């Protein structure tokens, strides 16, 4: 790269279109949102200065506090549910056996659906009267099994975690599959000769060598579930009551349904800050800046 240092390199002007677009729709909004959080703004008339009103409401609004709590809960639950499953399944389909590649091809199918498609399918599938689940439990005489998952405030959040996992486990499985395939087989063969069984090989070879993948996938799950919106919005709309009203939903409802965009902006600032902090952690820990794509030349 140093070779032609005498000559002028490519003009930095070439970066301008991308920079401009990115600045207008991603960077400027980051500044705008901070400003808006100090205003009253209903989305139609011009914003007016509000001082710290929105922020003081943020400190006292119990609905929002509940939403923060739910967001943390969904973050932890998502991680606890998705990580072991994605890890085990990903390592499983990293095997080259024919039946495993067939399974893998089926496992990745949820990735093809939009969040809206997944949400609408599950919403109908879980309908307490006519849905598949209610129908099946009725036919199998499993009356003890709850059918009103989305209508029950105690169960709805868990069902949301399950649906979110249904959507995202394939993605993380893909990461783990790629990671596990990079582990040299010779290591396993050596362990085999030493008489290590399958479980010990997994615990002492696979798991430690997948450390980076585990970190990457974990932070993606944590950041992703913090800012998660689409599925919950369509499936429950935050209900029943406030049972699934996570923070991004609380922001949306305040901003677009109650036309209180000033307050929604304050929530947005909190969300962006939290997500940025978590993501920067990702870049730090995993060296994402030196990112090499894992999917070429395979």
């Amino acid at each position, binding site marked *: 790269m140093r070779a032609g240092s005498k000559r002028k390199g490519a*003009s930095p002007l070439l970066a301008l279109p991308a920079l401009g677009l990115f600045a207008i729709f991603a960077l400027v909004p980051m500044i705008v949102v901070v400003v808006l959080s100090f205003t009253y703004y209903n989305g139609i008339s011009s914003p007016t200065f509000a001082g710290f009103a929105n922020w003081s409401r943020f400190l006292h609004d119990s609905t929002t506090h509940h939403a923060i709590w739910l967001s943390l809960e969904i973050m932890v639950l998502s991680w606890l549910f998705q990580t072991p499953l994605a890890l085990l399944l990903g390592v499983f389909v990293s095997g080259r056996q024919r039946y495993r590649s067939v399974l893998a091809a089926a496992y990745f199918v949820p990735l093809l659906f939009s969040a809206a498609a997944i949400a609408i399918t599950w919403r109908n599938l879980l309908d307490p009267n006519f849905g598949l689940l209610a129908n099946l439990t009725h036919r199998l005489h499993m009356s003890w099994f709850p059918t009103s998952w989305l209508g029950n405030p105690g169960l709805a959040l868990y069902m949301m975690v399950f649906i979110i996992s249904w959507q995202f486990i394939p993605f993380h499985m893909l990461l783990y599959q790629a990671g596990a395939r990079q582990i040299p087989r010779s290591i396993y063969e050596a362990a085999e000769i030493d008489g290590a069984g399958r479980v010990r090989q997994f615990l002492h070879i696979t798991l430690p060598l997948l450390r980076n993948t585990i970190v990457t996938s974990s932070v993606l799950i944590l950041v992703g579930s913090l800012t998660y919106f689409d599925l919950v919005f369509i499936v429950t709309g935050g209900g029943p009551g406030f049972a699934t009203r996570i923070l991004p939903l609380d*922001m949306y409802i305040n901003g677009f349904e109650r036309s209180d965009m000033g307050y929604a902006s304050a929530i947005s600032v909190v969300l962006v800050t939290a997500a940025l902090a978590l*993501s920067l952690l990702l870049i730090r820990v995993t060296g994402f800046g030196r990112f090499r794509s894992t999917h*070429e030349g395979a």
Partner: protein
Amino acid sequence: MRRLLHLNIPGALAGFVWLVIVALPVYWMVITSLRKQAGYLTADPIVPGRPTTAQYHRVIAVGFLSYLRNSAVVTFAVVSIVLVFALMASYAIVRGRGWIASGSFRLFLLGLAIPLQAAIIPIFFVVNKLHLYDTLPALIFPTAAFSIPISVLILVNFLRDVPTELFEAMKIDGASEWQMLWRLAAPLSRPALLTVGIFAALQAWNGFLFPLVLTQSSGTRVLPFALYDFQTQFGINVPAVLAAVVLTTLPVFALYLIGRRQLLGGLTAGFSR
């Protein structure tokens, strides 16, 4: 080697359980979409009935094709913008020197961390100020903008591996940077461009939040938002709603059948999704 050939019984069992969890909803969605509305409530949900495409006709009759066209326009525009802009920027970053090149790379890196869900209020504000609300460009520009950071990252990593000698040789032949960008860098980075293009296309095709917040009339409706709308419109005609779901997913499914590896590559490119 021998060990790998042993059948992992507990693993295989768990693998089949997960297969059922993944496949059952998809199977149910497809067979239900082929039912009559009347048959839905009484039929055995697992056994397919006599298939009818009535619900598909119904979905098409309520404007599905115009939403499909909107989605296609948005997707095409987003992919074009992302490919051209990101390639130009990556070229400038890899081949250029000085603070603008390195600074803009760092900026895009930081941009990876901005979650679009959290930024939706100010984006709504900006789109309104630009008088783009309820137009297709209101969907195109933000979607493209949020796909650019990861695209630049992928392309920069790819272009860095191109031997400098190739550029030098072309330069000696009198080529300008602009010519080298399109005649050398672009053809060489075809695999990376494919990844980026698929990633951007999926973002545009499947995105729900931007359409929800930035459009409202049926003239600018795109498919994911149309699905949401069908749900309210058709109410309890579940087979029709699911027929719409199947229809919107068919193009991506076709892509999956043709180029599974490329599609999955495009998906993981969106690490930060």
